[in-house]
């Protein structure tokens, strides 16, 4: 173990990798601060650039970009009352009132400290929890893994769709698209329509850029956007108005730790995500507060709680990714694509086959948290200038980046056409209430599910009873059924309550 850690340290702790992590934090904070761009879009656009770089440098940069964007979203949330990213929506509740009181600097710094503490907590949890879970997962056979992926797919179906049925349809469509190309076992052509370009299947990166970035631009265009203009930020003469004092930080630590724990828990569960975590963090802070009436009027803990929670999602979302090959959040799914592009197949074998790379990545993640303490500081000063870039200037640039990003990895023009196709498809999916996120995650997990399912059936001589005679597989199957029933009940109850209201 010590040898592995030393090897990982020698691989990871280089100036080159430090630069990667720092660059990710910088780009993430910058792009996350601009309303209309989110972390997932930023990561999707950055992946093509990392194609020729080392896996450690690339993945550290992409995870850094994710963390940076989660914090960056709070800059516009506080200064403009317009969250730069969806996960910063809860931060506006107290962040903007603080800015109106002339305490924008204090709110931004509290958001930063809470984000860093949340991120460190989450990465520590990743380092502690990942090895035993990966060791446990090594005992799983094809039947258990097939049922585990089925469970994950059902959980993921709840991401972003307007109903449970639509979520499940999105997931199934993603799995169907994953069958395009050569059969993973017999190499028989499937749905290739005689095109050589489709033999290797649909290119993940092109699909990802189309579904997540181009479709988002189309949706924002159609819905119409309002350029964000803040009221002039009030400046206070009090020097304490732009900094967080030690008593203020100390009194918020309990809230920050509770929110970090909540966020990490949400991150480790596939499909829950950082938006839910941020609102849950805010809610627990308000419920446990001695002064709940101050929340929404500029309470500093109301900024700390959602920021700690949404940043604590990032590291923890990598736990199911590196141990089971199941992404815990949409951004983690995009990062999973980066793992695959760099020849690292996420799943139980990852920590056995590439221990030094994975432990090295863990070290870089912890380090990047400390970079986060310093790098976004200049952005606070540039704040209003950075976040006021008009979307009419931004969108043409993003669309060109989509095209070149889709082309760049394989220098294949067919991928550009695929990207445009999925951009339009993603737009319609959103219009119909289906979930591009669930479709994408199912597309990534689909081939694994198929291989494990067919291997299990081969072992059992074609009998599906293998999925109920193995206790763990049966456990996952029952959990899947319970999840479907629980979600259906939850939806029905929610609708009943809305109708009654």
């Amino acid at each position, binding site marked *: 173990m010590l040898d592995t850690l030393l090897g990982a340290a020698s691989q990871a702790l280089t100036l080159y990798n430090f630069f990667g992590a720092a660059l990710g934090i910088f780009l993430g904070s910058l792009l996350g601060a601009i309303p209309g761009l989110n972390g997932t879009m930023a990561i999707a656009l950055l992946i093509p*650039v990392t*194609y*020729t770089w080392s896996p450690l440098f690339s993945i550290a940069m992409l995870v850094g970009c994710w963390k940076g964007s989660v914090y960056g979203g709070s800059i516009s949330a506080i200064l403009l009352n317009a969250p730069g990213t969806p996960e910063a929506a809860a931060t506006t509740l107290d962040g903007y009132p603080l800015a109106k009181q002339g305490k924008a600097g204090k709110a931004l710094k509290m958001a930063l400290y809470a984000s860093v503490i949340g991120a460190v907590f989450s990465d520590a949890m990743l380092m502690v929890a990942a090895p035993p879970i990966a060791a446990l997962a090594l005992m799983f056979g094809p039947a258990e893994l097939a049922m585990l992926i089925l469970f994950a797919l059902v959980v993921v179906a709840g991401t972003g769709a*307007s*109903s449970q*049925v*639509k979520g*499940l*349809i999105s997931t*199934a*469509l993603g*799995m*169907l698209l994953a*069958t395009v190309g050569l*059969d993973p*076992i*017999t190499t*028989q*052509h*499937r*749905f*290739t*329509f005689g095109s050589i370009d489709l033999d290797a299947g649909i290119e993940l990166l092109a699909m990802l850029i189309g579904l997540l970035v*181009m479709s988002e*631009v*189309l949706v924002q*265009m*159609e819905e*119409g956007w309002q350029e964000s203009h803040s009221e002039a930020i009030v400046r206070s003469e009090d020097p304490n108005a732009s900094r967080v004092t030690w008593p203020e930080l100390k009194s918020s630590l309990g809230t920050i730790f509770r929110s970090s724990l909540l966020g990490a828990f949400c991150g480790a569960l596939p499909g829950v995500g950082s938006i839910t975590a941020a609102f849950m963090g805010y809610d627990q802070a308000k419920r446990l507060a001695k002064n709940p009436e101050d929340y929404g009027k500029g309470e500093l803990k109301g900024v700390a709680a959602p920021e700690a929670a949404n940043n604590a999602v990032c590291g923890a979302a990598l736990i199911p990714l590196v141990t089971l090959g199941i992404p815990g959040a949409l951004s983690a799914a995009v990062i999973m694509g980066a793992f695959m592009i760099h020849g690292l197949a996420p799943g139980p074998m990852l920590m056995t086959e590439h221990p030094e790379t994975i432990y090295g990545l863990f070290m870089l993640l912890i380090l990047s948290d400390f970079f986060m303490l310093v790098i976004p500081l200049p952005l606070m000063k540039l704040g209003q200038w950075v976040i006021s870039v008009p*979307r*009419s*200037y931004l*969108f*043409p*640039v993003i*669309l*060109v*980046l989509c*095209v*070149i990003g889709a*082309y*760049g*990895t394989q*220098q294949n*023009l067919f991928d*550009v*056409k695929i*990207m*445009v196709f999925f*951009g*339009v498809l993603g*737009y319609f999916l959103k219009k*119909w*209430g289906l979930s591009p996120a669930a479709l994408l995650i199912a597309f990534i997990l689909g081939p694994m599910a*198929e291989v494990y*399912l*067919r291997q299990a059936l081969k072992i059992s001589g074609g009998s599906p009873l293998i999925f109920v005679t193995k206790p763990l597989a049966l456990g996952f199957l029952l959990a899947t059924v319970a999840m479907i029933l629980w979600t259906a009940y939850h939806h029905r109850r929610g*609708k009943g309550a*809305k109708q009654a209201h």
Partner: protein
Amino acid sequence: MIQNLKDFKLGAGLAGFCLLALFYLIPSQVGPLTDADALMPMLIVCFILLLSVVMMLQSLRRPAAASEGEHEHEHALAGPATRRSSRLTLAAVVAVMAAYAWLLDVTGFVLTSVAAMVVLFLIFGVRRWLTIAAITVATLAGLYVCFELLLGAPLPVGTLIERFLD
């Protein structure tokens, strides 16, 4: 009566697609339904068919969700002229992107990207030529340096330009 026409149409469309897949696409593009290669596509298509039927049945008695209803309401409030204009803009952007994807091979990265960016800026309502020129040049120069020089990933020159250069 149908309470949610949008979902009913979507369910019917998906059910139609599933039947097409079961009786034509899978047999012609994969193989007989009894083959191991066809197992996964067949299972998935049957599952989608089942869900489509459930969605159609739900749409008979459940109205659109509140959030969807609000969205439709906002659209209705926007007025037919605004709606038509935003749809036309959207169609124009999709057309530019499709043309960009198809022409990249012929006219190459530089020409196609310059043309696409200028048209996109105009569609998005930017009319300051200096701004358009500055952002276009900065973006394309940045992409060229990044892909061609730093990553060694050549950007398409274009068959037409290649012929012209020869």
